[in-house]
């Protein structure tokens, strides 16, 4: 280093004497910029419970009502026995007696992004009974505990086949402890299979907001607690595709949104 400094001295003199142009170098005192981490997210918009509205509606079905498709369960007598000789039919494609559709998953597809919701502590239960998943369509929030139980005296395996979430496939023998799982990412819908009883099917919708409902045996649904705003409502069915509608919900307003599916 000393050698360097000695060399620099005449250099500096020469430069100072000869070079008129001042080395207009930018001041290089590098003060680290104050580390303002702009990572803090915008504070979540609060929901005023006094202004929330509600969406209700019916999922109707137009066209010829498809015949119920019976499930051949004879491969596993346990399953046959569970239905006491009455048999069972596939839920997908099923139409209610009043011409409406059950098991449609109705949800707020867009419009609720500005709200954040705590992960519910309540478990969402998925049961296996009579070699069927109950419920057939299940909505949960991201991170919510899905509690999987079996009421059947036969071995099942629960095999969700997601696109965006982690895939797993676990055996649940009769009497085995329940399986608790969570899904980390939003996804509409995750089909759930049992490889041993290939007719068994459930669908899990993983949501970021709690504004969803499943149409029941009368084809109706209700989404409660919706803050006023513009929303896109999606209605998903396993067999008849998906539809969406735009809707504006005013303060305390009860809106009706009906969907009509065709075969």
């Amino acid at each position, binding site marked *: 280093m000393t050698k360097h400094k000695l060399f620099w001295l005449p250099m500096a003199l*020469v*430069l100072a004497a*000869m*070079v008129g142009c001042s080395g207009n170098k930018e001041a*290089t005192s*590098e003060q*680290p*910029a104050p*580390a303002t981490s702009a990572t803090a997210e915008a504070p979540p918009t609060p929901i005023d419970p006094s202004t929330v509205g509600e969406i209700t509606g019916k999922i109707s079905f137009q066209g010829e009502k498809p015949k119920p498709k019976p499930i051949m369960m*004879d*491969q596993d*007598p*346990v399953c046959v*026995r569970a239905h006491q000789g009455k048999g069972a039919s596939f839920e997908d494609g099923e139409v209610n007696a009043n011409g409406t559709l059950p098991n449609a998953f109705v949800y707020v597809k867009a419009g609720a992004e500005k709200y954040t919701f705590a992960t519910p502590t309540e*478990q*969402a*239960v998925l*049961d296996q*009974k009579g070699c069927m998943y*109950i*419920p057939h369509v*299940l*909505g*949960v*929030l991201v991170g*919510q505990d899905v509690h999987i139980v079996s*009421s059947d*005296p*036969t*071995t099942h395996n*629960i*095999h969700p*086949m997601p696109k965006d979430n982690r*895939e*797993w*496939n*676990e*055996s649940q*023998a*009769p*009497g*085995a*402890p*329940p*399986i608790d799982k969570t899904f980390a990412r939003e996804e509409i819908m995750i*089909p759930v*299979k049992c*490889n*041993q*009883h*290939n007719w068994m*099917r459930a669908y899990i919708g993983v949501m970021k907001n*709690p504004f969803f*409902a*499943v149409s029941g045996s009368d084809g109706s*649904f*209700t*989404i*409660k*607690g919706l803050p006023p705003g513009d929303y896109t409502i999606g209605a998903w069915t396993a067999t008849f595709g998906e539809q969406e509608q735009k809707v504006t919900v005013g303060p305390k307003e009860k809106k009706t949104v009906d969907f009509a599916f065709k075969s």
Partner: protein
Amino acid sequence: MPETPEKDPVISQSLAGYLFIAAVLLLLSLAWALWQEFFGIRPWKDYEREFVSRYSIYLHKQIPLQEKAEKEIENSPAYLTLQREYQDLEKSILPKRESLESETALIDVRMAGVLDRLTDVRSQVAARGYTIEHATADSTKKQALVEGDLRPFQATKYTLTLQSLEGPGKFDSVTLDSKGLEEELARLQTMKAQLQAREGDLLRPLSEKQKKIDDYLHTQLFVQNRLNGLSVDQLRGLIAKMQIFTIEIKQINNPDAVIVDRCESCHVGIREPLKLAPADLETSSGKPDVMSQAFVSHPDMELLRIHDPAKFGCSPCHNGNGMQVDSVTQGHGEYEHWLWPLYHKGNMEAGCQQCHASDMVLDHAPVLSRGKELFQWRGCVGCHRFQGYDPEPEDLAAIQQQVQQLEQDRENDQHGVERANHLGDIATDNESARRYYLQANELRVAISKIDQQIDLLDNRSADVMRDMKKVAPDLKEVRVKIHPEWLPVWLTNPHAWRPTTKMPRFRLDEDDVKQISAFIWQNGLDVKLPAQPMGDPKRGEESFKSRGCMACHSIGEGAAQEGGWFAANLSRVGEKDNYDYLVRWIHNPRERSAPYCPYEKRDLNPADYEKHGLPFVFDLDHNRCPNDGHVLEVEQMTVMPNLRLSWQEARDIAAYLETLKKEEPSSFAKVPWINDPKVAAGGRKAVGFYGCAGCHEIAGLETEGRIGTELTKEGSKPFEQLDFGLHVAEARDSGWYNHKGFFEHKLTRPEVFDDGYVTKTEDERTRMPDFFESMHDGTAQAVSVLNSEPVPESKKWSESDLSGADQEQINALTTFLLGAVSSKYPERYFYLPPDQRRDIQEGWWIVKKYNCMGCHQFTLDQESVVMNLPQFQTPEGKGQLPPRLVTEGARVNPEWLAKFLANPSLSDTDTDRDGVRSYLKIRMPTFFFSPVEIRKLVRFFQALSEQPMPYIPRKLEPLSTAELTMARALFTSQGAPCLKCHAIGLAEHDKNATAPNFLMAPDRLKADWVRHWILDPSMIDPGTNMPSNLFRHEGSRWVFAGPTPPSFKGYNGDHAGLLVRYMFEINSAEQQRLIQMTGGNLKPKLGASTTRLESSPKVRIAGGPRPSGRGRETLAPRGPAGPSR
């Protein structure tokens, strides 16, 4: 009169002005030189200074964040638990530690006491001894002195009061002589060492715990993706490194390969242990600049780990002038005095090729791998030789040469035998005679060896012929296969008729088209095919979409296209092909109308067979020429395999494909000239000129060579040998006067370098056809421009006009060609592994050749074609996917695999099925691999899983009678799900099966793999149908997770092991037994009248307490947890 002296120049003139100017100039130049020395030609100094400053700032910013992260981890329950465990441990060993330490302390005190006296005694002994040694030379006197003085002194006893080992404050009084003192000291030292060892043992768990705590911190930082897991201490270490950073040229010097690279003088951060992006190393004003770009860490650290920069440097992979540090442009080699500029970002992987020429598929180099694949697929190899590609014709020639040589040797040896025998006969003595006869016998044995050698080569040549494929269809079949009206349509512009075809457009005029069409047509085999009844298109569609055809073929055009890219789009196949031919092709694509004899160089006909009284039968089992015994070409030279479909199914599929056509073949213009020999006359020349036989089999042109230039080293061809035509000036100005520019332009529009010439004849123009003509503006292709016409300005197109898919292909091929250089590095740098890794290299060539990846995944990140087809997206569809082959080598017995690859139906008679997965509609077809390729594939799979070859199965412990009973009981029990999915050879049961038959396990599987598989299948094949959690860990063994039959009571063995051992004992008798046990239908019977098998577990479940305390009350179904239902 004195003349007035002229003005004295000394007085009157001054040079001061000039001198001043000169001085100023000199000083200025000195200043300039110094400035240049310190600033001008040392740009890297600024880079290094800047890096030190910016990187330090970055690290300083990171430390508090990392500290916070560390704090959080340190406050996490897991960390606190670890810490508590440490403290507890420390506390629990404390009394023992203290007692050990106090014992040691007592020993120390006692030892000090002994030592105190002993030191004194030792020095006195030494002094007396010295005196005696020097007192006299007489040994007798010495002895006397020793006896008289030293011995008595040594025997003197001392009484010492020493610390007692029984406890502090206690003392022993001992009387010891010098020997006794030494012994006491030794005793104490041993005791101390023992105590210390015990203390070490005591403390070891503590230090292990401490390491666990440290590891936990690193692991958590790593898992949270925080700065590559670097701790705050390590970050401080990096800052310290920056503080002592020396500004100097950073150089990699590897004399071994003459690599001198100074790139790191500017790219200072390239090897830093954390990921540095430009944004991390911004200027002080907070903007990334050129330097931030230069300071990044290497984007693929794994590559650096594999290729140690100290050995490989930078420029061998990246090009550029590694020694040059004067300027960025020069360092990057982007100036006229450097031939090998830095590879462009899009072609970066070109650098891999020179050492990895033997790899068809290369990790970390997807673009290069794509280029290599395209070189084969696009048919470049039909005209251009490239080492490693399409080796079969050359292998065949080499084999023939070897055979000729051997035949010559044989003949020579034959003469030798005769000569030796003759010499023996006429020998003068018996000894010489015996020697000659021995010589004759040796030669006879040599001849027999040569005969065997020739047999081997003969077989090998049959194998090589089997593996020899053509890029495009056999034109000998054209009369049987094609509607003649379609030929001119196709030849004029293949892209117009089928946009995705790999057939390029030759710039042919109408006469060319006619002549070639007529020649090909008239040159075709004149045979008749049996007429096929029409199939059922509806069933055909189902078959086409489920059997696996779409792994290679696509249907639908434009946006509606779906299916694989490897083989032709079949939407319009009905417009060109005869239905009868299509059926035969689908039934067995390898079937040809006549065998070709390479020896006679002609196609054989029934008369050739009749002559010898043989039926006209030729296939892989009848592949010898009846005339001369030479190996025949008995297959179509296509890679398309045989799906082993029934004739009916083949008809159905053909019928379905017919329905897709857009127009009737009759709508094409009539071709009355097609049989006119005069028209065909010129066609022969054109077909040879354009090198059609490079890709197609054409009668009479089977032995034509490749018409193009060899490209193995094309990337290092000097500039001046690349013909830029009249575009040189333009290329210079526009910055594409380099290899990259040449390849890209040539691939985009091969005739580009003929532009502007007015004197070139048709024969002098480039013959290379147009491969890429789909335009990104949506038009299917450029207007056809003929070879003989100068290209009008309006019809020129450049790469950017092309569709994204075409641009991607051009870029991949350019990358490949750029990398195709003759390397200046020593051969030991090339990737030519001598071990199993070579099997992997060789295997990939075959995998790519047959498009195995259309159906199978070999690694998880590589997607197959079928897994993305719409029909395989539903849960049912996913269950129909072909198996993933990620651990195939560890899974299957290689001998079995060889059998399976040869015949996937695993049956000589019942071939309309898949031998393993009969439950899948998609089917492993028969590829008719030669033994050479089968061997390579088997080795490939074994090598991918690092399995030793040959495979010697581990002998499993036979089941005891009790174990056999248990295994049978478990297999057939309601709780065990095995037989719900696995086939068992019982039609009624197997219609629901979704997994292979256990009967195959002993021959097919490896027991170790099976054990891992059943314990957690998702670890081996994520997403598999086979569920996890079938076993749970209990102590050191795995037990079945479900209810077990009562016979398991008291069994202490491993359940997984038991099942594996049972699986490997299953034979058909055992399988029958299992079926019998379940009443003949494998369905567990319900109710009371059951065998002993089911009674137990179910009864326990129904009536007994559930093993889990949780759950009963939660079993009732609940609605979704959402706010409403």
